[in-house]
């Protein structure tokens, strides 16, 4: 039997927090423009879209799934909103239709995974391409859609406004994270999601409604992706749908995994996503101030991810000894 974990265990999450704090200290001492209220807010604002998408991805991953269609969902649904409003549809109706599109994509994802029983990685990979292709060819005029029709309404304020000096993007990241955290911790679907991610067979036998839960999981992820898309579109006044073809989805998985959410499901929480997001934010911000080239930034990011995973597997080994603790 293993001695109970000590008060302070070196989990991956804590390692990442330590690295983040170390980076903060180093950057504050070496870069004189780093530790200013403006820069810190800008730093968080820059990663808040990534963070919100990370929350959506975390929901999928905790339930032992993954949603690779998340960027496509975000891009095409919000691009359609802009297109509709540019064509004269009132903005609130356009938002509802765009949200409906996002939810529909999530619903198809969930249906494929839950009822057709296709592995999530294939179902969502295919669905991302299908959604992008269909919406781009049938509903959109161009790859790049500008925010014109609703540029002087409250809609524009969502991504560009601020409350008490704090950018809305940051506030919304906090709000989405808080709601998702509460949902996971204290609601029935949240507890079920952890149970399903931990052991789907046991969860099913115990009476957890697995299939409706998977539907809920992907629909919620799509809804959160839509929120992220709205913030992104209204802060830069446009949507570039080709982002669906970029490697943004890997960055999202990066912030989720680096904070300590286990890809095997059932492990981790929204807190891990926030930790991962902040760490990437600090790193990218510091490197940008230092004028580190974009390619090198990517290399450094991925090396840090590797390091975090390696350190975690050294301090928390999963070998025969630890997996069979009950049987010594």
């Amino acid at each position, binding site marked *: 039997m293993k001695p109970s974990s000590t008060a302070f265990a070196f989990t991956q999450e804590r390692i990442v927090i330590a690295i983040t704090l170390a980076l903060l200290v180093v950057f504050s001492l070496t870069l004189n423009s780093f530790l200013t209220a403006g820069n810190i807010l800008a730093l968080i604002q820059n990663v808040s879209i990534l963070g919100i998408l990370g929350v959506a991805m975390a929901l999928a991953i905790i339930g032992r799934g993954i949603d690779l269609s998340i960027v496509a969902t975000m891009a095409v649904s919000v691009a359609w909103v802009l297109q509709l409003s540019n064509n004269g549809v009132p903005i609130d109706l356009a938002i509802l239709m765009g949200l409906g599109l996002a939810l529909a994509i999530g619903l198809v994802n969930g249906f494929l995974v839950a009822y057709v029983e296709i592995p999530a990685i294939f179902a969502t990979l295919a669905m991302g391409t299908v959604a992008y292709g269909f919406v781009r060819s049938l509903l959109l005029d161009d790859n790049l859609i500008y925010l014109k029709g609703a540029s002087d309404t409250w809609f524009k304020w969502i991504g560009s406004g601020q409350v008490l000096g704090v950018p809305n993007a940051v506030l919304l990241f906090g709000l989405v994270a808080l709601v998702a955290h509460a949902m996971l911790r204290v609601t029935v679907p949240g507890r079920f999601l*952890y149970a399903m991610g931990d052991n789907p067979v046991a969860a099913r036998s115990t009476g957890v409604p697995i299939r409706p839960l998977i539907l809920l999981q992907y629909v919620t992820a799509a809804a959160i992706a839509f929120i992220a898309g709205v913030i992104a579109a209204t802060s830069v006044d446009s949507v570039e749908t080709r982002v669906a073809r970029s490697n943004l989805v890997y960055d999202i998985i990066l912030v989720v995994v680096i904070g300590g959410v286990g890809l095997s499901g059932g492990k981790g929480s929204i807190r891990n996503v926030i930790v991962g997001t902040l760490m990437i934010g600090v790193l990218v911000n510091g490197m940008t101030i230092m004028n580190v080239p974009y390619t090198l930034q990517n290399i450094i990011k991925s090396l840090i991810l590797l390091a975090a995973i390696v350190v975690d597997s050294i301090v928390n080994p999963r070998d025969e000894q630890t997996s069979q603790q*009950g049987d010594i």
Partner: protein
Amino acid sequence: MSDNPVLIEMRGVTKHYGGVAAVEGVDFTLRKGEIHALLGENGAGKSTLTKLMAGVVQPSAGEILLEGVPASFTSPADAMRRGINMVYQENSLVPSMTVAQNIFLGDERFFNKLRPLYIAAQQFLQSLNFNVDPWASVAGLGVAKKQMVEIARAVRQNARVIVFDEPTASLTPEEKHHFFALVRRLKSDGVSVVFISHALEEALEISDRITILRDGKLVISDDRSKFDRERIVTAMVGRALSKDLYGDETKTRRKPGERMLSVQNLSMGKVVRNTSFTVYAGQVTGMFGLIGSGRTETAKIIAGIAKRNFLHGGETRLGDQSVRYRVPRQAVRDGIVYVTEDRKVEGFFDTMSIAENVGVGHIAAGFNKGQVVRTSEIVAIARGWSERLAIRSINADARVIELSGGNQQKVVIAKSLVQKPRIIIFDEPTRGVDVGAIAEIHQLIERLADDGLAVIVISSYLPEILSLSDRILVCQKGRVVEEFRTEDATEEKIMYAAVH
């Protein structure tokens, strides 16, 4: 036996995991060509001792002598080169490969021609008198045959010592006979065999010497002739309790209460064929059958767990109402729960604490009002069940994977009982559970029946069936073929019905 030369001698070996000693100062000798049984409760240190022997872990203190020369094995491969092989409970075969490929795995030539390989495998298997097709893929083999392949592999590597970790846990009685015959043949070839077991009869039947561990320390190590059941159990648990385990023929059997469940002509594919039986409230219905008799599958259909891949006909009546469940959730809501035989794979949630596990059961049964979970309420409920079932853990937040087999089983049972079932199905309730917990689980099962629940106990272990059940159903090839009142049943009668 005692004149045979000593092959392995362990002197005062100690192994610490973290701060806890798994084995402490144990002396152990293994002679050439002997069958040595290693007994003890879960957590007694049996597995660790054999792992030390096979080089899987290294001792923190003490020394291991191989033929009188101090030896330290740096890895299992190192120990294997010196002729010490271990056959694990979990198979270490590659399922997608054929039997022959598995036997020669890691030992192939660079240009691996298949034909000579199969011919060699065929000859080798024949020389061992194993009836296994070398062309068969391992995935399709039964447990016993898989074990034969593992043993063939070990023998081919010129093993002088073969360590079996619970070799008979998943074997049917007839497969067990084959296995014992094989072990005796190994012995006559001069191979030493160490085997870990929970079944005392086996140890008494087959071994030359018996070593018993308790709490990581050596209790006794002696020739088999010096032991009987009573003495082994006393040594294992440090107290005499065999009467409350399987004995006591004189207890009164419960009368059937109202009819809870009646199954008529239930069928699913080739596994369950046209089976019919009835289960009454307030008594324990034992269900015995060999592997492949469809016991587990029948239970899983009743509890809605079996997916409907094959059409299955027939009717299940709960009380007077005809029911047919598509998902376990509906069965759980109707008060039918199934406690699995394979708790690691389909029983508990291993990243969760005891309270969280029990909590999932509570919520899934629909006892949580509204959508917000009241954590404090669940912690209180879980604490109540932990006390009632005497679940022992280091602290309340310990994850279930860290508990011993018996305590894990109790968590799975608590997770089901919290759903307030009317019918509870235990599938092999004491498999991989230590002796102390077996008694507690048996008492619990009796208590549930006394409280008026309809209890079904599926077991391959006849003494367990006979001591627990008020009536006994015997399954064979997918259907219930015989029903006994326990007063009339004997091990022989039941076995006769199960195989004919």
